[in-house]
């Protein structure tokens, strides 16, 4: 038996012992299971050493942290790119443009920092906190700030204004060179599939997209692929009426994949350009529902026309779980882009930045309200300005 099976045996065994232990003493409850836990963790640690601690760029550890960061990410060309860039451009101008867009508490906090000048330890950690508040995530925030800090040191800049501008450029560099428009160039009809967890705004976005595309001259059909949630197809139907497009519906509780297939066939028959398909909201942890989505995706690939876009809808209020969503949905349905909804609220949607940076899925559209016109193509500069204040 290979070493791989040996692994599985060990795992199975641990799980087994664990479950039995936990269950039999379930009445005794958490106390005993905690004891087991520590035992298990020590015994498994013998097999697998824990990962080395991550160093952090805070407090008095500055020197150490900085050197580690340089090791991990040898100063990329960013520093040089940025420095020449800065000389050519006039930072104050772009800054005032950025400032005019600031709003809310974070903006105010940052403006304070901008006026402060000196670059204390506190400044850098406040900068990091600004990013964290935007839901970019701790790791990426640290990374961005320490890279900015390196670049700052190398370029010999000295004001906080310039530091913040460096950060903005750093973030923009991460968002550079992506195809952000819908690629609807396949053999018609081009199929656009919307996926995401519950309540993020899939159905609403479809209504808006239908309007967006028809106003640019495409003919659109909607597919009511959410046959699960109560009144989901009625909801989409109202959007179809509002956008004045045709809708193909299935029966409630019916097979979502075949509704989408039917819509594609219908589109082909009447020569429509685009089919936008709704899917039921699902949590990425449900393996059944993710399996269903994979099936929908397979059927959509085989449907008449071309499956051109699979858009993951992400709610701007989403925290770090967004990354897990993006990973799972990409695995099940090969997402080609993100629609970031509810940016009209106070949340910054930084998780979409994390998704694009970590997984390379470009943000394509932004939802800014509940009305039909509240959908705009994603603009990196505006987005970054909002996050950085």
């Amino acid at each position, binding site marked *: *038996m290979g070493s*791989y*099976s040996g692994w*599985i*045996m060990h*795992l*199975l*065994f*641990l*799980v*087994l*012992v664990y*479950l*039995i232990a*936990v269950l*039999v003493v*379930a009445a005794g409850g958490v106390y005993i*299971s905690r004891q087991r836990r*520590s*035992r*298990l*963790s020590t*015994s*498994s640690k013998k097999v*697998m050493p*824990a*990962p080395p*601690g991550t160093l952090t760029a805070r*407090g008095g550890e500055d020197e150490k942290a900085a050197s580690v960061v340089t090791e991990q990410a040898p100063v990329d060309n960013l520093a040089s790119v940025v420095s020449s860039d800065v000389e050519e451009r006039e930072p104050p101008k772009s800054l005032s443009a950025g400032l005019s867009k600031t709003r809310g508490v974070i903006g105010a906090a940052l403006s304070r920092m901008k006026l402060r000048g000196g670059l204390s330890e506190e400044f850098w950690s406040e900068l990091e906190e600004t990013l964290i508040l*935007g*839901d970019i*995530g*701790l*790791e990426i925030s640290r990374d961005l700030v320490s890279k900015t800090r390196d670049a700052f040191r190398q370029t010999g800049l000295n004001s906080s204004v310039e530091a913040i501008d460096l950060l903005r450029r750093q973030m923009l560099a991460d968002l550079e060179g992506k195809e952000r428009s819908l690629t609807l160039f396949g053999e018609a009809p081009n199929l656009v599939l919307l996926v995401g967890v*519950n*309540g993020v*705004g899939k159905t609403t976005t479809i*209504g808006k997209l239908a309007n967006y595309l028809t106003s640019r001259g495409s003919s659109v059909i909607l597919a009511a692929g959410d046959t699960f*949630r*109560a*009144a989901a197809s*009625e*909801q989409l139907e109202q959007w179809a009426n509002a956008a004045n497009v045709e809708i193909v519906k299935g029966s409630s509780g019916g097979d979502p994949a075949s509704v989408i297939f039917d819509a594609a066939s219908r589109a082909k028959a009447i020569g429509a350009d685009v089919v936008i398909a709704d899917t039921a909201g699902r*949590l990425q*942890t449900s*393996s059944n529902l993710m399996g269903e989505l994979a099936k929908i995706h397979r059927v959509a690939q085989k449907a008449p026309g071309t499956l051109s876009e699979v858009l993951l809808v992400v*709610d*701007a*209020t*989403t*925290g*770090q*779980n967004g990354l*897990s969503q993006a990973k799972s949905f990409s695995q099940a349905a090969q997402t080609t882009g993100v629609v970031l909804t*509810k940016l*009209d*609220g*106070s*949340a910054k949607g930084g998780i979409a930045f994390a998704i694009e940076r970590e997984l390379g899925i470009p943000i394509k559209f932004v939802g800014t309200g*509940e009305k039909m016109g509240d959908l705009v193509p994603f603009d990196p500069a505006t987005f970054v300005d909002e996050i950085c204040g």
Partner: protein
Amino acid sequence: MFDGLGNRLDSVLTRIKGKSRLSPADVDEALVEIRAALLEADVALSVTNNFVERIRSVAVGVAASRSLTPGQQIVKAVDAELVRVLGGESLKISYASKPPTIFLLAGLQGAGKTTTAAKLALHFRRNGRSPLLVAADLQRPAAVEQLRTLGERASVPVFSQPTDPVSVAKAGIDEARRVGRDIVIIDTAGRLAIDESLMAEISSISNAVQPNYTFLVIDAMIGQDAVNTAKAFNETLSLDGVIMTKLDGDARGGAALSVKEVVGKPIAFGSTGEKLEDFDTFYPERMASRILGMGDVLTLIEQAERTLDEEVTKKGASRMMEGRFDLDDFLEQLRQVKKMGPLKGIMGMLPGVPKELKDVDIDDKEINRIEAIISSMTIDERRNPKLIDGSRRQRIASGSGVQSHQVTGLLKQFTEMQKVMKQMGIGPASATRRHKAKSNARKGRRNKR
């Protein structure tokens, strides 16, 4: 996806296990990790910073105590503090002396209010009450139809009229009085906390109906914005409690802490699925270990209790304690565990499992193969693998469609595991009497086959 606090602290603090006590720098490092764990769980920054400061003195205490497991000690302290904050006063619903008792649900778009309204209605109906649902979300397309369908599913009537949210809510209360419903649950449109006119609207609904309970419905996946939202809704409506939804996902749910801190009112219910039954009282202990990424033991217990046969499990346990856990027992337990779903999912819920292990790709086909090999053995072979000689090994291998060295491998693994079991301190302990009873039971079972 993220490392739990236990793993984090262990990896920072293991290297100092040899030292007699933690230095102030060690404490700082531990606090940095605690902060990181909370932030990655989406606990709001300000709440995180306050929380970490509160933990500082505990950590210093642990440092002074020359503990051999400082990491575990600190985790325990953090866990306890989280439970304390998340728990506090629990919500006891007291019904209005003059019915109906009125519940108002508020929250952001897409948080899950409509489903929650129906779940709450079912909850009350099952407690012998007669609720009425009021559809005051006239904004989102088909929201009323959605509530109607859900109401039907919950066997609870739904009231609505195409006027405006305030009038619908008021008329709903009148209707409840008229037809004698003792609970009214009002679903409202989702709104952004910064949308002044919609916040004013919900404030007028509240003024018009004077709800006994106002709940903020909040999505477990929400990030840093949770504090802003909770603060604004609390200021506008003075909330009585919070309902967390989508807890069946894998979000760490740090918002629970943020919202609790800001609102100071209990988290009354948790919503754990799309079915109307998936609704339960909120458990601070579970939330705490979830936020800290310590594995959701309690969920695991529940899941296990639902799928595993208690008798079979107990038998496995006593066989283990007797040190007589053989391949036959293993097979029986393996078949049970398989029912709980993919191994990787179960692993994910086990606390104390290192991240590397959780990330390993596990092919459940391999488990089927293990099952096939053991199934191809006779009962006597399972009980006493020494019987398995060359020809028997051949037979087992061809019976299960593997190579005979794979059979050998499995047997070796099993012997090794028995050793590990001893090392873990699982073995005979004054169980001779039970042992006898068990072997009788085994005889009985053998006859059945």
